[in-house]
């Protein structure tokens, strides 16, 4: 079909607008799965060990280029990060019990009560004083975000993964990175 020359510019502009709108919508959806992590500078000075990792899509792509597929750990990592656009980890270890402010934990938990986020697992161990909450963000039938909040007496960790989180791929990490085989079937 030939498009008259005087119609080409408006059609091109319209197409560009539609593409921009789609991209903006995708960015907004992906953005929702990214949590606004509090500034933990005060905690860093108190903590005996700090892990602060911020990997956006470009850094993940750069890291992926240096993964050696011959190494099982690297190969599992490569599979796990497929479709992931952001990984944010904040972990603090302290020399004394409960040295971190509960308000910081609550501010992150509050964000996870927003629509879209679903609590997958909530573990509260009275004996070991461990609390682990695993949340997943679902858009349609697809998971596009994962959040883990783990608080132990001397450790506090927040993990936020943005993008197409595939629990099956996380399951495939078993045996690597200290993850045991996950039996997700409901046995009685």
């Amino acid at each position: 079909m030939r498009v008259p020359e005087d119609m080409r510019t408006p059609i091109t502009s319209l197409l560009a607008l539609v593409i921009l709108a789609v991209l903006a919508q995708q960015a907004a959806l992906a953005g929702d799965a990214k949590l606004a992590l509090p500034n933990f500078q005060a905690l860093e000075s108190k903590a005996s060990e700090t892990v602060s990792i911020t990997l956006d899509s470009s850094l993940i792509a750069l890291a992926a280029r240096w993964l050696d597929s011959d190494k099982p750990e690297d190969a599992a990592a490569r599979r796990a990060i497929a479709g992931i656009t952001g990984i944010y980890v904040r972990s603090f270890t302290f020399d004394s019990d409960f040295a971190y402010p509960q308000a910081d934990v609550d501010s992150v938990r509050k964000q996870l009560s927003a629509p879209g986020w679903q609590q997958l697992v909530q573990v509260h161990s009275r004996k070991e004083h461990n609390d682990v909450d695993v949340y997943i963000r679902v858009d349609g039938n697809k998971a596009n975000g994962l959040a883990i909040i783990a608080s132990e007496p001397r450790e506090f960790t927040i993990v936020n993964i943005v993008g197409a989180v595939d629990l099956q791929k996380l399951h495939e990490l078993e045996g690597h990175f200290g993850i045991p085989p996950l039996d997700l079937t409901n046995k009685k």
Partner: protein
Amino acid sequence: MSSDLDKPLREALRAVEPPTGFAERLAARIEREPLRRRDWRPARRWAPQALAASVLVAALGMYGWQLQRERQGLEARQQLLEALRVTGQKLDLAYRGVKDAARPATAGDAGA
């Protein structure tokens, strides 16, 4: 009519004596010319070296950039593996909690 034209033409094109010293000045200028050409010779001689040096600098720059990129890549890889390790550790913690809760309640110390 032609004789009318011839006269002013002859007048205009008559032989004129050059100004005093013209021949000497011209000879001196001719003498200077080869000297000016010689001025370019050192530049011509250094041009290949300059080009080689430029190529070397560019190659070193590229190598440096590649080294920096490699360092950034390896650092990003290290961070990625560390992030997955922490994620795995916390998923393990959740898994153990769920497993403990699924066990017959003896002590009842965990809830999921």
